[in-house]
């Protein structure tokens, strides 16, 4: 049964790596503009759940629906196209392209989606300003601090105006002050653009930025306590 108005909905997801089960019948749903924290201990399957929801990997069984489309029935090329157009990503270590400047990194998803370079870089610059890292626009990732790099990564995730942002331990490599700042900017910007956020974390203070928590344990997702 699909909850009314849900944007992303997963049912009975199973995924194993070899003989090790990562997801064992996980369910999940996400509404537009909603920030959901996926929590759980190390190895519980939360990143695997994120990857299945984002169409990065295909589950062994179960279904993932995005709007009226069935992700699990889509080809790899279709899922790639969907990720380019509708999703944004932030990872623990930013994973910025080291040879591109901050500006070019933020413009990258737009350019991959066909936006002209000039337009892409104009939009990217606006996002950098919004994330308060416009001063490092022309620097390469190796030349900026961890916090700045992560904010550039958030700008990159939001630049394409995605409907869903997937953030996998976005503050895992930052000190608490920088972590707080990144989370605040991420969730504020997401709410401003009505983007939903799937936030994988094991830190309660990070989960506190979410509207709702889902706890994954032994490959099964359970609804947690509302944070707000």
């Amino acid at each position: 049964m699909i909850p009314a108005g849900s944007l992303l909905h997963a049912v009975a997801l199973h995924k194993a790596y070899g003989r090790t089960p990562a997801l064992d019948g996980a369910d999940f749903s996400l509404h537009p503009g909603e920030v959901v924290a996926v929590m759980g201990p190390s190895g519980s399957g939360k990143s695997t759940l994120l990857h299945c929801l984002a169409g990065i990997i295909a589950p062994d069984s179960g279904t993932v629906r995005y709007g009226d489309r069935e992700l699990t029935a889509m080809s790899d090329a279709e899922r790639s196209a969907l990720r380019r157009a509708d999703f944004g990503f932030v990872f623990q270590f930013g994973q910025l392209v080291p040879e591109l400047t901050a500006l070019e990194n933020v413009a990258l998803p737009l350019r991959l989606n066909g936006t002209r370079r000039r337009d892409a870089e104009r939009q990217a610059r606006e996002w950098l300003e919004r994330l308060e890292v416009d001063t490092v626009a022309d620097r390469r990732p190796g030349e900026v601090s961890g916090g700045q790099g992560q904010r550039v990564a958030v700008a990159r995730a939001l630049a394409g105006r995605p409907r869903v942002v997937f953030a996998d331990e976005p503050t895992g490599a930052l000190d608490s002050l920088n972590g707080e700042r990144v989370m605040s900017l991420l969730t504020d910007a997401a709410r401003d653009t009505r983007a939903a956020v799937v936030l994988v974390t094991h830190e309660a203070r990070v989960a506190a930025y979410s509207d709702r928590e889902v706890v994954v344990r032994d490959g099964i997702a359970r609804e947690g306590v509302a944070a707000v």
Partner: protein
Amino acid sequence: MSPLPSRAGDGGGRGGGRDRDAAARRDPLAAPRTGPAVWGRDLAMGIRFAAGGGREGWIRTALTAAGVALGVAVLLLGASVPSLMDAWHGREKARENLGQVHQPRAADTTLRYASVDTTFRGTPIRGRLVRPDGAHPPVPPGVRHLPGAGRMLVSPALKELLDSPEGALLRDRLPYRIAGTIGDAGLLGPRELTYVAQSATLAAPDGYRIDHFGKNWDPTPMQTPAVLLVIMTCVALLTPVMVFIGTSVRFGYERRERRLAALRLVGADVGTTRRVASGEALFGSLLGLLGGAALFVGGRLSAPLITLWGINVFPSDVTPGPLAATLVGLLVPTAAVLVTLFAQRGITVEPLGVVRNRPPVRRRLWWRVALPALGALLLVPLTWGEKWTDTPLNTARFAAGSLLLLIGVTALLPWLVDAVVSRLHGGPVPWQLAVRRLQLNSGSATRAVSGITVAVAGAIAIHMLMTGMQAGYAAAYAESGKIPRIGLWGNARSWSGTEQALGALHATPGVTAARGTVDALIGPLPAAGRPQDDLRPWTLAVGSCAELRTLARLPSCRDGDVFRTTNAPGTDVPVAPGRTVDLNTAIGPDDQVTPQPWTVPGTTRPVQLRDPGREPGRFSYDLLATPSSLDLGRLNSPTAELQVDFDRATPDAVEHIRNTAARIDPMMNEYSAVDNPHDGPYTSVRNGLFIGAVITLLLIGAGLIISTVEQLHERRRLLSTLDAYGTRRATLGWSVLWQTALPVVLGLALALACGLSLGSLLLAMIDSAVTVDWPVVTAMTGIGGAVILFVTALSLPPLWRMMRPEGLRTE
């Protein structure tokens, strides 16, 4: 893993001998802190790591070994050249006697000896006629007994040819029964065509008497272009191999650095990690050394199949000198270790990873330009003035100049790539990713590409040199051989004999015309008690009126007439009618001859030569005489000079003429431009070089693949992230293509510039017109382009494997 010593210098130092002993007992490996034992242990550990690196490690080791093996094989071949030439010249000296200053008197131990070399379908055949004066004549090496009269000993290759259907025509020319074969000691090489025959009719003035074989003489030095070519080939083959060795020992640096960091974590000091890294490089290098030795030993077995510039040798001749071989064995592994240590400068392996202490390298132009400029400075003066001469200084200058020019290319390439890519902006995403990647670090790509650059530049220069040489020979032979004509000359005993020879030649298949005269030198009659006039001797031609008319415009002519020419070049004093001259004039300073006075008839008329001049095909006779006007027997060494025109359309016309000439007189010599001996060898050398260049390019391409895949592997997490973003595979595929193509294209451009410049300099050195071998330039550039596609195509599967979400997993 065995425990490793902690930081150098600490532990055991302060506690005195007892503490040290205790430490040694606890950990035997920690006992020796310095010295060869430590080096040996650490190198051995590195070798163990390299040998136990799994499939990937073995591929890298195999590529390193392949590069080193190629270098070792080329070095060993180069080191064999002196001993090869010594052996070759040694056998030539031992079997030859070019004539003794004081000819021995006929005795039991002497023989008359004459050279009867010939050519069969373009291949030279060395022939020697002997006629023993007694029962114990000398024998050349490789021969136990001289053959009996009318018999011959032949080389195995000549026997094979004579026994084959192709040799049927040659059998007519060598009318001797085969009595046996000549042993290896009497042959220059296994493919040499040679024979020794006994002629019962060999007599003075043909040949000369000798009492031994073996003569000290200076071997004919190689021709200038050939020397240039040999030096250039060695430089052009060795430089890319050296570059490749430098590149290949860096393969797998990322994994190696991780390993070394792990070693640091368990207590290894920085020195230890460097020695372990050197050991890893040493392993591939040692394998390469063995492979190179095997390649060399296997390759030299093919020596009998190769004939270059008339040199064909036995496999045993291709043996490097012991000193050179030892040097190769020591220097190559040492070079591998040094390159590894050099590559680690500015890098500190820390327990948690590698710290690169070096700031971004700013590539400076001045010293990069200085290298090729210095090379050009050494080479350009060699093109001035006279044609290049083969002196030790010139050879060293040439080798150093070429080496500097080629190495300069490898030094210029990184600067050029940096300079170009720093100016590139914009473009589609794949292009931008590639350009930015190169802007950030183009080192590994340019290192690999510099090998391609040197190989292509060297190949283009060598091909230009060879094309120029080949074109020069072809033009010269085409000019000389425009008229299908063979010149023959031999001792003339009488005019009637010469007429018979002309008749026989006329009757030969394919001959369209045969003409000739008997030529001799005559001089002023020496007066008793005073030295002979210091005058140039006059040249006399004796022939029928018909023959003389081909030489000069005669008003009228009857047998008995004599003519003096008025336009012969360089005549100081004309031969005036009524002057008494010496028909038996001395030709050499030691020529003891009896004067044969002859008075130039008063009826001698002046005539004009048709084509006066000293060049081939022109005439410089001072006196023309018909047969009855003088007795040929009184002349000193009269020579029959015959010219035979033939029809090119008649198959083997030239061989038929040679057979006729041999029947007339086996000692008859030939001069002709019908066989260009340089064409075949040059074509095969060019083909060989081309194949060598292609193999080098493929090897370097393999190195590029390794570098590219390693780079991709290093970035696998980033690739997974880009995949998560929905990046198309094609986008990253194109980016890999551009990333490979940019340095390769720039490298090829540089190679073209350098190759064409070096080739032009080489051609200028041999006074040849500059001609570019465009097919080779196109082919080499095409192969360079194919390498780009090859590298990209083989990099795509690992790229796509790494674009999988597994790379995002951290648990």
